[in-house]
């Protein structure tokens, strides 16, 4: 069976290549920092399943140390100049969009074919992971098309990939770090403490105020954890189920569905949701690391108010 480890291994080989090319990049003063960082990512993806929890933990500490003590620079692989790109863009025309569409097209067609035709019944692919594996297949297919069409130098995809990953830097690994922090928080009982505190401030008998505390608790806890998924079970156990659903007879489907979306409003407002808010700021080379969050607050707050009113009027 094709398991998700195949995708990890492919990504691991790519990061391994980034590490080697980084080590060879004499233009980057901190090239060995980059090589070590991407090399550790490669190790995690290739061998993480066999290293054991403690060694994986040491690997995490090493990644944090390399990034935190400023040991990474930014590689400058040879690429085309702005003038060359303008000429190429003109020559190649709109056909340039097609390879970019191969990745989503393969991911989509593959997922649908696997789910809705007898292909899926063969059990070739690890359940629930097919989209990720078809995404990898799409990337490989796009590369094959690009090589056949444009005949770039053999190392070009890896060097161009390294250019982009170095522009993102350690932010590429931050989402995984935050997920790990969330697990430690949960193991330490942070959720229970917050749920208990939220429950302690609720005045008795007022449905709207109870709902308000539930909603603000969802937002706050989502902002702390960077993820509404971590907040929902805690706030459901503390407030939504015992008070809103059982005591006040609210509709569980409305409270559950829109309650989760209340949390998503919090996701828009926190740097802890790094893959949505911090990584794009790095990818787009914004000067302000919080630029994306600032653009989102004006949508998140009115939408939060709408969500609270929707629950109030639809669930009760």
């Amino acid at each position, binding site marked *: 069976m094709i398991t998700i480890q195949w995708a990890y291994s492919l990504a691991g080989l790519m990061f391994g290549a980034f590490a080697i090319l980084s080590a060879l990049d004499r233009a980057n003063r901190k090239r060995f920092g980059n090589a070590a960082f991407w090399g550790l990512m490669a190790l995690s993806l290739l061998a993480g399943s066999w290293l054991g929890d*403690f060694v994986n*933990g040491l690997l995490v500490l090493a990644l944090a140390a390399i990034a935190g003590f400023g040991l990474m620079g930014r590689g400058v692989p040879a690429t085309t100049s702005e003038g060359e790109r303008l000429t190429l863009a003109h020559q190649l025309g709109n056909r340039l969009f097609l390879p*970019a569409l191969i990745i989503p097209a393969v991911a989509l067609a593959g997922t649908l074919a696997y789910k809705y035709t007898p292909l899926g019944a063969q059990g070739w692919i690890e359940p629930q992971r097919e989209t990720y594996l078809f995404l990898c297949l799409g990337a490989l297919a796009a590369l094959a098309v690009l090589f056949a069409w444009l005949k770039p130098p053999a190392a070009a995809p890896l060097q161009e990939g390294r250019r982009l990953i170095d522009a993102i830097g350690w932010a590429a690994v931050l989402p995984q*770090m935050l997920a790990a922090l969330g697990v430690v928080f949960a193991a330490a009982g942070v959720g229970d403490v917050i749920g208990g505190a939220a429950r302690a401030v609720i005045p008795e008998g007022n449905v709207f105020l109870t709902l308000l505390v539930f909603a603000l608790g969802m937002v706050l806890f989502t902002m702390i954890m960077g993820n509404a998924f971590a907040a929902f079970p805690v706030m459901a156990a503390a407030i939504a189920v015992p008070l809103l659903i059982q005591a006040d007879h609210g509709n569980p489907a409305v409270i559950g569905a829109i309650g989760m979306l209340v949390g998503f409003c919090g996701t828009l407002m926190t740097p802890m949701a790094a893959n949505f808010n911090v990584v794009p700021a790095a990818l787009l080379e914004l000067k302000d690391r919080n630029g994306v969050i600032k653009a989102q607050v004006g949508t998140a707050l009115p939408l939060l108010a709408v969500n609270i009113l929707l629950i109030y009027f639809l669930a009760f």
Partner: protein
Amino acid sequence: MNLPQYFVLAGILIVVVGFALRLNPMIVVTVAALATGLIAGKGPLEIVSLLGKAFNDNRIIAIVWIVLPVIGLLERHGLRERATATIRRFKAATAGRLLVLYLLFRQVTAALGLNTIAGHPQTVRPLVAPMALAAAEQQHNGIEEESAEEVKAFAAATDNVGNFFGEDIFIAIGSIVLIQSTLAGYGYNLAPLDLAIWAIPTAIAAFLIHGFRLLRLDRRLKRRRK
């Protein structure tokens, strides 16, 4: 509840202060994790193992970087420049209108379960952000750096809003499964469709609110040029 229980919240304080002081987040997160674990009475080896296991279990987040060599290779051949040139041919295009269209595209495709076909590395950096910038520059005959930063930030924000408030309409997404399993634990057995249908009002509200703000962005860019 007694006071010492609140001490486990020290990790949150470390994160908030660390982000506010703009310390390196990788260090802040590590220190917060170690501090929280120690306060909760766990040994150092146990905490390091916990971190390692959680990091390892979340490797799926790293899979998306597999698209970088393709995107980089396309950029090498002028993809961003081509996206810019294409937008210049549409005289009626503005940054705001373009992003409203992208918002709609992102919400509809996410609602169909296709939330991985677009995203910051796949579509925003190579296509959406350069197109929005080109539209803004064309409409206003060039824009200030402040405005360019804002247009790029709104391109990323639009991707997030479209993704978040579209995906829950699809019945097989992780968050619907989580709501369902959480509530089932208390004896409320809901079908995914019962939940997904209640995501629709919020999706519409998100489109209206964010769409309105995108059109206001156009006006703000115009004002700044005067």
